[in-house]
């Protein structure tokens, strides 16, 4: 039993550097298309399932604009996001973000999580760069972000 755990640990430590800043890519075409139309389709790993549920229930006012869509589409995307949520799939990145979420809390902005802020402590002029524009624009710097790879570039 112990040797299995040690073996697994060794294996994990070997692969850890490669996936330290990686999450499973979002592959569902409906979700990719619907979310990706206006912003990068964020992988669900950064928020707990209850956050995604709240978001999909409040699309009429989605960060100040209407993102309303057909009910069956909402249900489908909601399921995809809940199934891939941080508290459902776990993993290094998910755990790092969940640590800062209050039990029962339903945060909506990934960019307000201290796990994000700690790694993105840049002067304002960096954020103001024309190609960045907003904190939610991951692919501006993480070129492979849409594939779940947030390794530094």
């Amino acid at each position, binding site marked *: 039993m112990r040797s299995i755990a040690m073996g697994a640990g060794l294996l994990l430590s070997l692969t850890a550097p490669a996936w330290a800043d990686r999450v499973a890519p979002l592959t569902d075409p409906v979700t990719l298309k619907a979310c990706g139309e206006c912003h990068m389709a964020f992988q669900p790993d950064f928020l707990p399932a209850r956050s995604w549920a709240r978001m999909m229930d409040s699309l009429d006012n989605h960060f100040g*604009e209407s993102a309303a869509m057909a009910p069956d589409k909402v249900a489908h995307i909601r399921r995809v996001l809940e199934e891939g949520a941080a508290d459902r799939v776990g993993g290094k990145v998910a755990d790092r973000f969940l640590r800062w979420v209050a039990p029962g809390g339903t945060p909506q902005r990934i960019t307000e999580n201290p796990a994000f802020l700690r790694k993105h402590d840049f002067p304002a002029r960096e954020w103001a760069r024309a190609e*960045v*524009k907003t904190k939610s624009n991951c692919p501006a710097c993480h070129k492979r972000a849409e594939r779940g790879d947030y390794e530094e570039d």
Partner: protein
Amino acid sequence: MSGAARAVPGRWELPALRLWHAALAGGFLVAWLTADEDTYRMHVFAGYWVLIAVALRLGLATVGTRQGPLALTRPGRSRLMIWMGGVLMTMVGVAALSGVIADGKSAFEDVHEGLSNAALWLIPAHAALVAWVFQGKRLRDKVIGAARVSAVPMLLLAGLVLAVPAQAADPARDAILAGYAKAAKAADPGFGGFSAARGESIYRARNTVNADYPSCATCHTDDPTQPGRHAKTGREIAPAAVSANPKRFTDAEKVEERFNRDCKTVLGRECSARDRGDFIAFLSSK
């Protein structure tokens, strides 16, 4: 190069060439028909198919008889045909290759689309040339033979005749407009058709409902033929004008979704069927 020494082409060579041609043409057709996000996987598959077919042609040339059907150039063949084949295959190959790059780097998508469209236009030129060169020759021999040979280019031409309007005309958009016209008439029996001018005033109006999105032009820019940019997220938006983006207003579900959302966000109200039709009329006229 083992077969190069033989003078008489193998019996398999012409069927192999025909099979190859069918594979390339079929692959290109599928890739062209599936060039949409909804059918992206099939598009990628067809693209690789095309790329492999082009590579295979070069391989076939090395195993075929030097002056046989598989040779890339051979005496007695029209110079024009040889050049046409070379240019067309290069373009198709480059288009497919740019697709492979675009699959990884989405910044290449426009390049890929441009190259593919260029390759697409070479096909009727190729078909016309084949018809012209072969038909003249066969007519001297047998009428029946000519009819058989011309079946291939005629089919290709027929395909193109169908293809060209598919890009330019827009039955889907007409259907959407017809639906709005019906609803507008039901709401107001005096409805006398859509107006691009009314649509333009909706597009350009400055509203006060939402400070982040005061106007349609905020994201879609004052010139709707230009690509826009989401005011908050910076995500690029394909041009709103039909002239610059023929796919606009052809997906009924998406059209409804966008009107439902954006009218509420920007105008703070629902858009009526007449508003929607006017808006489409304006952007179709740009």
